[in-house]
Structures are given as C-alpha cells and as structure tokens.
C-alpha cells in the first residue's frame, strides 16, 4: 500500500502542482478572490419535430391523440417517434387513441420542479392510454393522494378550446374516472 495512504488522509498533491501566481496588480489581494458566480442563461431556437411527432402535435391542437403502429408487432406508440424501437422499422399507420387510460405507475412529488409543476405534494403519473403499448407522463389531480393506486382509470383534462396548441401543454392534467380498476399485472411491460 502506498505510504501516503497509511494514515487514511486524502493523499497530498505533487509539490508545486497547485501553486498560484501572485497577483500582478498592486492592492488586489488574492484572499478575497471571486470563486463562484451564478449566471442566468437562455437560448432561442427553431425546432423541427419530424414527421411523426408533427402529426402527433397537430393532433393535440385538435384535441386528438395520434399514436403510430409497429408494422410487425402491432404495438401502438404514443408519442410516436416514427419508428418501432423493437423492430427498427418505420411506423406508417396512425391510430387515434382515446383520451382515457389506466394509471400504470406513479410517485408522490413533494418538491417543486420547473415552471409547469403544480403545488406540492402532487402525483406524477404514468398513464397507459387504452390501445397504447407505452405510457405517457402526466400529473394526476382531483383525487386525495392516499387514494391513488396503480390500475386506477383516468381521463385527460384539456385546456379550453381557444388555448389548444400543437403542444403537450394542451393536456393540463389527468383526473380519475369512475370505472373498475385494471389488474396491476396486466400493466407490466407497459409502464
């Protein structure tokens, strides 16, 4: 074992490696050097979503949820990326999905994140739309947190019609549906 580790302190630096140059401006003491600043940053850019996401986002502006079908397995992906992640082939057939589904997984968030997060605590939910193969992310409201459970039925709450846009923000949140729960085992592989 190297001698430097014998006393279990952090090993020393090689001599001279971190010696700092002396300040060349008289009166500028090095002992109050600024070490850290916080700088706001922003960027404006043009985004081209691609063919399948364009169809999907335009659908949202019309209060429709458009998935696309794996040409081999028939799995419906939403949001679509234009190809099947399983077989690698393009998805060509569009499938309109209902704005209702099943809560496949969730957690209760107690800290605030981002500008679009609701007041804490809130339920971050994965929603498996009826007919879809993978779940969408959303927020579940209009239910006491202790009553939330995997397998419960939910429905989208949209923004007002004059607020609809080609954006995920057209769906405000999800709310419970008064229907029987789906068995959790059936959701495995579709979270």
């Amino acid at each position, binding site marked *: 074992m190297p001698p430097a580790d014998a006393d279990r302190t952090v090993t020393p630096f090689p001599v001279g490696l971190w010696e700092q140059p002396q300040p060349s401006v008289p009166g500028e003491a090095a002992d109050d050097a600024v070490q850290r600043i916080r700088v706001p940053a922003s960027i404006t850019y043009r985004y081209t979503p691609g063919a399948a996401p364009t169809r999907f986002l335009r659908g949202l502006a019309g209060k429709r949820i458009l998935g696309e079908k794996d040409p081999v397995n028939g799995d419906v992906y939403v949001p679509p990326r234009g190809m099947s992640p399983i077989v690698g082939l393009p998805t060509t057939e569009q499938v309109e999905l209902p704005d209702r589904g099943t809560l496949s997984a969730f957690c209760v968030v107690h800290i605030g994140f981002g500008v679009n997060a*609701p007041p804490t605590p809130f339920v971050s939910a994965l929603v498996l739309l009826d007919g879809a193969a993978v779940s969408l992310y959303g927020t579940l409201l209009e239910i006491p947190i202790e009553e939330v459970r*995997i397998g419960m039925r939910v429905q989208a709450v949209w923004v007002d019609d004059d607020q609809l846009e080609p954006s995920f923000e057209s769906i405000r949140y999800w709310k419970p549906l008064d229907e029987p729960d789906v068995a959790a085992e059936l959701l495995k592989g579709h979270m």
Partner: protein
Amino acid sequence: MSGNRVAVVGVGQTKYAAVRGDVSLPGLLREAAYRALADAHLTMDDIDAIVVGKAPDFFEGVMMPEGYLAEALGAVGKPLFRVHTAGSVGGSTAIVAASHIQSGVHERVLTIGWEMQSCSEAMWALSFPLPFQQQLVAGAGGYFAPFIREYMRRSGAPDDIGILVALKDRLNALKNPYAHLHEPDITYDSVKESFMLWEPIRYSETCPSSDGAIALVLAGESAAEASAASSGVPPAWIHGTSMRSEPAMASGRDQVSPQASRDCAADVFSQAGITNPRQEIDVVEMYVPFSWYEPMWLESLGFADEGVGWKMTESGATQMTGDLPVNCSGGVLSTNPIGASGMIRFGEAAMQVRGQAGDHQIDGVRRALGHAYGGAAQFFAMWVVGSDKP
C-alpha cells in the same frame, strides 16, 4: 474475455464535495489523473492514450470540454477520446479504455470520469419544460420513484428496506476519506424522519450532487507486472467487461429489472467463468443512486432470486460484515459526481482486489464486481476484476 490481458495498476480520486471551488474543471481531472499515475509509479510520458467520460454536457453547462483537456492534462499529442452513455458513462469509459489494450493497439491507457455539478443545475437540466416533449416535472427521482414503488408492490418488501440501505452506505462512507457525505450522526430514525422528496424516496435515501473525478491507469500484461513490481501494489486483472443498452420507451420493457441489465450481468459473469455470483464474487460496488436500487439490482444481477433481494439487505448480507458486501465505499448514495460515479464503482472494485481500500477494505477479496447504469435505466456497464491473472 477475448484479447490481450489488461489490469488496473493505478487509481486516483479527488476529494468529493458539493462545491470544489478551489480547482477549475480541468484542474479536477488533473488532480485525479496525477494521483492515479503516482499510484501506478508511472508518469504522463508513459501513457499511450486517454479515454474520458462524463454525463451529457447540459448537466454541467460546459460544452465539449474534451477539446482542451489534452493540454490541461499535460498530454498534448496523445490520442484523447470521449465516451457518452449518460449515468453509466464512468463504467463504459473504463471499458472502452480497456479495449484499447485488449486490441493490442496500446500498452498503457489513462481513463478519467468526472462531473463538476456545481457548474450548473443538473436537476434543472433534467426538468426543463419543452412544449414539444413529454414533461416530467419532477427531476431524476421523479422518474425512478414509480419503478421503485412497482418493485415494492411486486416483492411485498417491508417499507423500511430503503432506510437500511441508506444507513449502511452512509455509515460505510465514514470509512472512506474521499466520500462527499460524512454524516457521523446518521441513524435509522434520522433517515426515516428526513423529508419525503419523491414518495417513497426520502431525502436521506437520495444521492448528493457532487464535484469530483476519478482516474484509472490500465496496462497490458507486461506493463502491469512492471508497474506492480515498482509500486508494490498488485494489479487488479480484468476478468470480464460488458455493456448493454435498450430503448427507454418500448412495449414489453420492464423498468424494474431491464432486459439489458440481466443480459449484461449474464455476459460479464460468463466471461469471468462465474456460475454462482453470490458465492464467487467477494464484494460489489453497485450503482445505487436511490436506496431501493440495492435490492432491485441484487435481483437483476443474479445475486438473489426475483422478489427476494430485499431479504439480503434486511439480513445484513450486504453490510461490510456480511457475505456479499455492497458499496463499502459509501456508494453513489454518499458521492455522486454523475460522470465519475460509474468509474468510482469500477475503481473501488479494483481497490478492493488490490488491497488498497484502507478502512473500508474487505479481507481477502479475490473477485469484485463494478456496476453502472444510466439514462432511463437503459444503459449498463459492468466489469469483474480479480487478483488472479485470467
């Protein structure tokens, strides 16, 4: 494992901290790199190539730092290569470095993983709202918590298994002078009473945000033996390396125990000639950023049957005194410079084999597993290192 033999002959780490205001980003790498070279009894002149890795650039807001790292490291003219595989990158980077020697192209390769999280806000970087993308307004913990909840549902594990993992790892960290979090007063109750962040994950069951770097010196057979003869520290021979990935969103995917994780473990154990990992692996450094991932990975990696990994945690089997110590270093739960975290697991596994781990050393380690995962639990990297030449 095919190709030329490779061993770890040098390990160097920085002191990990929330803010390392005393060094620049390249200075952080330099600190780890020169400690690893000193440990290997080599100098930068002896190094043929450098392989570096860190998490995606937007995590620290510094774009493509690899462009100036050769100069900053005092390695101008040497090939320098960067690897990108999200949180698993520290592991993948070490594996890519090893492949440079396995292939016969190089004899001595320096590999470095790092993150200077204080440069930016990784939590924010993971949660910024883009109208054209799905919005997870909950950070990294908000992504993983639903799958932890699903594991708890399937396994029926007691609610406090995560508390036991966090307590163990944070107490182990007290034995590791490099660890970020040193919390000597931590108790079961203090973890239990810590603020709930993403139910069921509490504050004390979550990894910190760290600045830090780790470097490893890898060498081919003759170079490794020469280095070991000079330094007096035995090499940690690489017995197997494996990487696997899978899509984040795919029908049939199981985020609790991803196929890529199971395939990666099976591959690395097969290369190392291991048929019973629980008996044949002496110590594990596992990527556990949220406490419950210990039992989840114990099952996924084949150390426990499906649904009962939590019993190993509960029985104390994964403590330093147990039969399969996990994260003697304190793990990711005590130190998380994201891009370094995987390589710290790989490096700590090598330190255990080389008898270098000091107060958190397990006696007589012959074979150790280093494990990393990243992305949406979709990228995996693992290696087995051992005291015997493979």
